[in-house]
């Protein structure tokens, strides 16, 4: 049992919990939050790989990857939230349910 193991198992659990939330929640904001939890799990996994308690120090490549990933994720989150808000403004509903929207005229 070491830190690598604890954090990487935490990370994969977070990923799964996020995935579950994404699939389960009808509400859009909750879906997007769940995606962020998934992202947090992935980042934690990458950093747990980078961490070496003693000699060579911390691997900078996963750190750079996570920094990139954080910025990518916040951009995606903001974009998705804007879409969700626009959907609510138009339809009054903050869900993504399957309504057969045939615009046959």
């Amino acid at each position: 049992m070491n830190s690598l193991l604890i954090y990487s198992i935490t990370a994969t659990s977070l990923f799964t919990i996020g995935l579950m939330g994404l699939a389960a929640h009808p509400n859009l904001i909750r879906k997007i939050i769940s995606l962020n939890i998934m992202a947090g799990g992935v980042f934690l996994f990458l950093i747990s790989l980078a961490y070496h308690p003693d000699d060579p120090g911390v691997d900078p490549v996963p750190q750079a990857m996570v920094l990139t990933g954080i910025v990518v994720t916040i951009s995606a989150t903001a974009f998705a939230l804007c879409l969700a808000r626009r959907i609510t403004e138009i339809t009054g509903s903050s869900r993504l349910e399957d309504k057969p929207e045939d615009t046959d005229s």
Partner: protein
Amino acid sequence: MNLAFDLLVGLSLVWVAWRIVGSRDHFQAVVLFITFGLILSLAWTRLQSPDIAIAEAAVGAGLAGVLFMDALGGLSSSPGSPRPAVPLTLLFPCLILASIMAIAVLFVPEDFLGLIPVVHGALTDTSLEYPVTAVLLDFRAYDTWLELGVLLVAVLGVMGIRRIGSISGSRLPAPADPVGRWIIRILLPIMVLIGGYLLWLGAFAPGGAFQGGVVLAAAGVMLWQAGHPSLGLLPRLWWIVLLFCGFLSFLILAFWSLFHSGRMLAHPENKLWILGVEYAATISIATCLISLVLASPGRCRVRDN
């Protein structure tokens, strides 16, 4: 001791994530998500990644929190669903997935070193001393460039959804009360100072374009939260310049290096180039993030009230 701390952080992360997914109240979920971001930055600090801790605290807990809170206000507050949030049919496949991944993780070799030797070996050939900044701005500059592209495309996408060409005239929250304004007046210069300091630090210590940019963005968003349009006051041209300068500087570097030395994105000997790219990236990251927050609620309709 460390192991106990690790266990505590790990367990609380999983517990908070579980609560976020399981909670019926959306507001509670958002608050818990901010907590999640803070615990996560604790974990980054523990894992000796101060760069990520700064970025996570500013972005994961700060900006994402603002975005979610703001969106929650914008969405009709639908009542919590009466049924349990996570159906059991989903729980079992997820449990299986989690256990498979946990077993796979056991196989990560103990003496795994990754690219540490390679990066440290190449550090002498680059003008940057701090390995993370060197990876971001030199070794893997292409990733950083494309990531600035992602930010830019997200801004363009938000503006496309809102059908706007610039962020001036974006909807503002109500002006802050005097106490809030007083706090902001003190905090703002400090944050700008911290952002600039982080940027300057990046060449040889934890810090750099990302961290400086996100702290500056947090300052800008705070200003907006207090009812001040901040970037919205800029003329469109200036705003576009700030928005594009990071991506553009990489583009110019790419063209220049391609035609000068035949190797795209190779930094010239002169250290000014890499500094210029870094500063431009910082400004662009901050501007893009602020614009994302400002543009997403749409344009205020002056004639409505």
